């Protein structure tokens, strides 16, 4: 498989810094962005990558050259940046973060004036501007300058969360919480949020934003060994693992057992629906456990294509209260902002524990069990259609959903196949009520796809 060292596409611009992602590209892209959003106030924040300040200077150059006023937030989680944009009425924003990618990568996340990810149309229009080098070139009298605001973003963010949980009830429990901040953008804010705001007894590791990532950046069971050991050793009530830009959340219990991300989302949905009525929107790959939880409150679950922007668009169109992407640990709560937000996730789950008096393990065990398998396989460009067709033929009894790739839905299980947006690989997810059934379907599907 070819290595994808630079990607300029509908998801923005991402690449290995240096030879591939250069300051020239970043500045051009920012100038195209500034031109696109119309020379207004643009918010810029970044995660803790070493290359962040360099990219930030390039981005500021491009934005100023387009006639934008630049508001620099410094190191901030992605949801915090998004909320700041919406709260301050900015024209848009850029997040300098490669999210869960390794440290040699960096990227620009693009936000519109509502603090939402650019949708497909916005992204392709911006891309056209970029490719045509059709940038606005401001004259001296039109150049607006930079402002800094590093203090107020976290306050604005937390002010949005608190009305949706019972803070006093959470504080009264003095939860013992373990945290792995991956030395990311949320590190300091997480410590402040969990101790000062939610009154937890915190046992934190990797919360120094000046240090490199101590582990693989994606928060998943394989990378969170230190967190689970810490949670167990300190006899914690719960452990939280973040990614470098603080949008994703992984959770473990006091025994150091990781919860499935789908179950974390289901618990957050339960916490939200227990307080206020509303429907749910999740992506196609999210577990049916969310349907079961929603059914307890007689609410509907809507499905969307994979990708935060798609889920958010769906949530808005059906006015869903809460949603997310189970597999990637993304919880999106309308009351705070239409973005994946690890802080909202932490608050909702702690609130649920406080409200029920149950341990995290007890809450998780209250969820229906599903067996899940996932994997990926590379494919040759041009052969994807044939693979999909073969799958359809192999399972004539399945109902089909073609919203995003192909989802084959059975009475007791589903298979979801979709090509990655960024690499020539096919992602395969399987879920079933029974372990054996999931194993069979997954083995069968992978064998077919590889043949």
């Amino acid at each position, binding site marked *: 498989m070819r290595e994808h060292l630079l990607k300029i596409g509908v998801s923005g611009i991402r690449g*290995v*810094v*240096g*030879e591939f992602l*250069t*300051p*020239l590209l*970043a*500045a*051009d892209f920012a*100038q195209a962005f500034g031109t696109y959003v119309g020379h207004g106030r643009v918010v810029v924040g970044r995660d803790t*990558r*070493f*290359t962040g*300040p*360099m*990219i930030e*200077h*390039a981005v*500021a*150059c*491009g934005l*100023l*050259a387009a006639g934008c006023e630049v508001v620099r937030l410094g190191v901030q989680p992605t949801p915090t940046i998004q909320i700041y944009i919406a709260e301050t009425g900015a024209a848009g924003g850029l997040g300098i973060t490669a999210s869960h990618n390794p*440290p*040699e990568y*960096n990227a620009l996340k693009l936000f519109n004036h509502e603090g939402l990810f650019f949708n497909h149309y916005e992204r392709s229009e911006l891309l056209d501007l970029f490719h045509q080098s059709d940038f606005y*070139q*401001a*004259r*001296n*009298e*039109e*150049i*607006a*300058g*930079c402002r800094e605001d590093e203090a107020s973003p976290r306050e604005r963010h937390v002010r949005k969360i608190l009305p949706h949980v019972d803070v006093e009830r959470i504080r009264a429990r003095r939860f013992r919480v373990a945290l792995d901040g991956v030395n990311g953008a949320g590190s300091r804010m997480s410590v402040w949020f969990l101790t000062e705001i939610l009154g937890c007894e915190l046992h934190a590791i990797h919360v120094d934003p000046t240090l490199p990532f101590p582990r693989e950046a994606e928060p998943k069971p394989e990378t969170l060994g230190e967190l689970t050991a810490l949670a167990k050793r300190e006899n914690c009530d719960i452990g939280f693992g973040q990614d470098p830009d603080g949008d994703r959340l992984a959770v473990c219990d006091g025994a150091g057992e990781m919860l499935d991300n789908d179950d974390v989302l289901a618990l957050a949905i339960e916490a939200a629906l227990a307080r206020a009525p509303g429907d749910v929107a999740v992506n196609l790959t999210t577990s049916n456990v969310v349907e079961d939880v929603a059914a307890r409150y007689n609410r509907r679950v809507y499905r969307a294509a994979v990708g935060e922007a798609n889920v958010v668009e769906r949530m808005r169109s059906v006015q869903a209260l809460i949603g997310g992407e189970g597999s990637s640990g993304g919880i999106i709560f309308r009351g705070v902002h239409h973005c994946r937000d690890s802080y909202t996730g932490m608050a909702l789950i702690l609130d649920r524990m406080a409200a029920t008096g149950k341990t995290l393990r007890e809450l998780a065990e209250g969820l229906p069990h599903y067996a899940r398998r996932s994997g990926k396989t590379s494919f040759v460009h041009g052969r994807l259609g044939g693979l999909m067709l073969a799958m359809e033929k192999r399972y004539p009894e399945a109902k089909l959903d073609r919203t995003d790739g192909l989802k084959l839905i059975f009475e007791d299980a589903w298979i979801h196949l979709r090509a990655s947006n960024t690499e020539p690989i096919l992602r395969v997810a399987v879920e079933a009520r029974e372990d054996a059934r999931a194993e069979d379907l997954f083995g069968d599907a992978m064998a077919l796809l590889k043949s």
Partner: protein
Amino acid sequence: MSQTLRISTAGVRGIVGPGLEGKHALEFAAAFSVFLPQEGPVLLARDPRASSDMLREGVIASLLASGRDAVDLGLVSTPVLQHAIRERAAAGGISIGASHNAAPWNALKFFGSNGTYLNSGEAAEFLDIYHLRRFRFVGWEEVGKLSFATDAVEHYLAALEAVFDIGKLRGVRLVADCSSGLSSILLNRLREKHGLNLTLLNASLENKHFSHEPNTTARNVNLMLGPVVEALGADLGVLFDMDSDRIAVCGRDGKAVSEELVLPLLADYQLARLPGRLVITNLSTTALLEDIAAQYGGEVVRVPVGRQHAMDALAIYAADRIAIAGEGTGAVMLPEFRFVYDGMASLLALMSLMVERGKTLGELVAAWPAYDMRKHEVPLDAKRIPLLMMRLEERYHDFARDTRDGLRVTLPYGWFHVRVSNTEPVVRIIVETRGNGAEELARELLSEVAAYA
């Protein structure tokens, strides 16, 4: 075609927006990082223009991405930056600012580890790297860091104090027009430290609307500075450009002393202390320099117009053979400051001259033979320049000619110089005669040039 961008050995200059863009800051800084022969940080200075903030961001991004640390000295003038480069043993420096140009303009100027402008060879190599885009961006672990230094002005002032006895200059009643630029920072500190008798005009830094075009011309002296000097009964008026590398002056009468006379005044001061040394200047400056040099057994070396030619000449002669170098624009370099165009040093040298000789500016100037100079510029049609030059050479073939930079002809009663500007698309005509007669000669040349322009 309106030319709003100029890339030359002097750096890059243009009207921001239609000419000079953010990408130029990024690309030039990337090329400069590769060009600089030694390891080490690059120092940055900028003027208060709004566009300087934009260009600064691009410069920093490329330096860091090239693995260079950047040290931002902030809003300081070019001579302060040049001094800091040597003092901090930096690899080089970049000055962001368009000195004497109007607000829509900006420029990037580049300095090597000795704090001076690049000479022709260095500049050519630098431009080759730029044009071939031989940039070298490093991996994430080697990306440079930005830091800030706030003490550059104090160190620079200490260097001035080491050369000039500034306390002795208190008796001079001085009015300074800072052109909304960086000289006010230095002058305020000098007044605080040494009690200079100083009145400041246009001393707030402006980013979009300057009090007047920040150029050291007689017109700008007479605009505001001259009347204030006269009204206050001051001894000296000094006008700085935006980054304080050059000056224009007036005496008690408030009338601008020709910018051509700044260099002769300072040459007088320097040669009196350093007799027999060389004066390095260009082909367009006043012949008065030869008179002054002769008085002290010195000699004038003339080079083509343009900073890089002066730098090349300075590279040829040993520093202890040179008394002064400069041009007729009021930009002057002293060997005590390792040949940096420095308006503040020029001012202090001029004040020292007045105090030591016990004379007013008017008296100093009046003692010299009278020259009459005219400067004109005519818009350029590049294709017809060779024909024009041939025609002029033909017409003046009986006289001594210098063709290193256009055509300079020495006449029995004066000289003239016709050349193409390095920075603007114009032909410049400079005429000087002993006593009167410049007007007539200039008219004659103008009619020749106009036929070809």
